[in-house]
């Protein structure tokens, strides 16, 4: 089942297209890694798809009403803003806003969704702590939990694992993979190609606003693509533990 359809999505900054005619679909069960160098247009692609940037072309999300969209897609921005020292549980409960009617208080179902999201992100026991007093990595996990609590069929996350310790990076990617296995669709931008190769079911490689390659990790992380887009060489092996990917050096 298709969760996101982009057809020639174009986002302009001035006269320069930062996303140039991006076309692809994401279906249920997919964990799509969005990779590419800095400035390739990954963030603009996702923000454009969510209707947060003006764009040309068709996107299945922007065709929805704001309320309908909020129930279909959760968005985890790159900037990790927590403006007020609210309790972790309160912050994660914000993810339930799209499910509440005007003036409605959170129900038992909402509380269960929040508790599940906290457990998934290894945050049980943090409920009453002030979110602003946690470490940067802990705050990042709280914000991921907020997006999970929104309980949408589609999740878009902009560099969710940047700044997490290795254990929580792996755990977060594994949690995403598990959500995908349960029928959700996720699109996650990230710079760690090793984690992307290992956990994502599919990679979309962007370069200068265009989709350079799209497919299973092994077919995207080819020697030519890496050289052309990132200017690096890498070692990739397909062992009994899955794909092992290690970037080696910058090509002259």
């Amino acid at each position, binding site marked *: 089942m298709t969760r996101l359809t982009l057809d020639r999505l174009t986002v302009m900054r001035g006269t320069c297209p930062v996303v140039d005619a991006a076309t692809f679909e994401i279906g249920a069960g997919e964990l799509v890694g969005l990779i590419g160098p800095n400035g390739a247009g990954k963030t603009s692609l996702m*923000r454009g798809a*969510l209707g*947060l940037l003006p764009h040309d072309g068709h996107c299945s999300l922007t065709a929805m009403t*704001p*309320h309908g*969209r*909020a*129930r279909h*897609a*959760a*968005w*985890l*921005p790159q*900037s990790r*803003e*927590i*403006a*007020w*020292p*609210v*309790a972790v549980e*309160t*912050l994660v409960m*914000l*993810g339930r*806003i*799209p499910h*509440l009617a*005007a003036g409605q208080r959170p129900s038992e179902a909402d509380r269960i969704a929040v508790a599940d999201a906290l457990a998934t992100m290894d945050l049980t026991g943090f409920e009453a702590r*002030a979110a602003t007093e946690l470490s940067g990595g802990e705050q990042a996990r709280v*914000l991921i939990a*907020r997006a999970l609590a*929104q309980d949408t069929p589609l999740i878009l996350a902009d560099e969710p694992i940047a700044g997490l310790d290795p254990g929580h990076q792996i755990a977060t990617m594994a949690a995403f993979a598990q959500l995908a296995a349960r029928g959700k669709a996720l699109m996650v931008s990230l710079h760690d190609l090793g984690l992307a190769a290992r956990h994502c079911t599919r990679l979309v490689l962007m370069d200068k606003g265009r989709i350079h390659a799209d497919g299973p990790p092994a077919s995207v992380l080819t020697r030519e693509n890496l050289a052309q887009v990132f200017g690096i060489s890498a070692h990739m092996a397909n062992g009994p533990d899955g794909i092992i990917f290690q970037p080696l050096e910058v090509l002259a």
Partner: protein
Amino acid sequence: MTRALFPLLTLVSMALFMVSLLTGPAGFGLGESLQALVTGQGEAVTLVMREIRLPRAILAVMVGASLGLSGAALQGYLRNPLAEPGLIGVSGSAALGAVIAMQTGFAAAFALALPLSALAGAVIAVLLILMLAGPRGGSLTLILAGIAISALAGALMSLALNLSPNPFATSETVFWMMGSLADRSFSHLWLAAPFMALGWALLLPLGRGLDALTLGEDAAAAMGIQLARLRLQLVLGVAACVGAATAVAGAIGFVGLVVPHLLRPIVGARPSVLLPASALGGAAMVLLADIAVRLILPERDLKLGVLMAIIGAPLFLHLIYKTRRAGA
């Protein structure tokens, strides 16, 4: 703690309201005063209670609630605890609007001319603030924008006084600008009430949107919050509240700073709960300050705005110090 807060604030406000009714230079007895208020027995005491003290106490509640609510709403939107209508020039611009109306005689043209002028001044100031500082501007930009707008409003106000042909009107305006609730009548109350009610109706439902904005604009927009509408509602609501409050009471600053600051830890920092709490807290704060000005210097007509500034400015300094430390 949050659950007990609202009944507690309501009780405190009601108690202060009663004390306000019983405070004044006339020196009537407690029973006599209340009896006159309710039954209308005794001509002088009834007049004082019904025409002087009652409108003053009700206005204190309305002005305080409006200023507290505006402060909490602005802070929630800008995600900055330093945003306060008085500090960032909104009250000053509203006062400018009112002064221009008074000096040009526009205020006498029709009954609503004065509050509408104050409201226009407030709208311009809020729009300028949002344009200059925006929600991503940070504390420094916000304060700088506020200083600029306050300075401009102050300069234009000085110009209006400078060019005023009537020295008596000038001194009256200067005292009016200090902010006071003394000698206000029911006509003032009816003038301000519709605008304040409109402001409350616009600001109080913003709670959920302001909660979502805790996560930033992008996340809030993706959760279905319509930011353009929220911003418009905020601008009009704050302008209606501050404009109306300034039109009847002059410039009273710091209510919107002190009250949300005191209540924020109690409500768990949630902007949605802080809105009604700050309205109640603002009412209590202005009632208290208005009782204090009558008790501290009964003969000298101490101005409410002056007292609030003396209480509020040190707290503002403390807040800047704390924000600086948190930013470092």
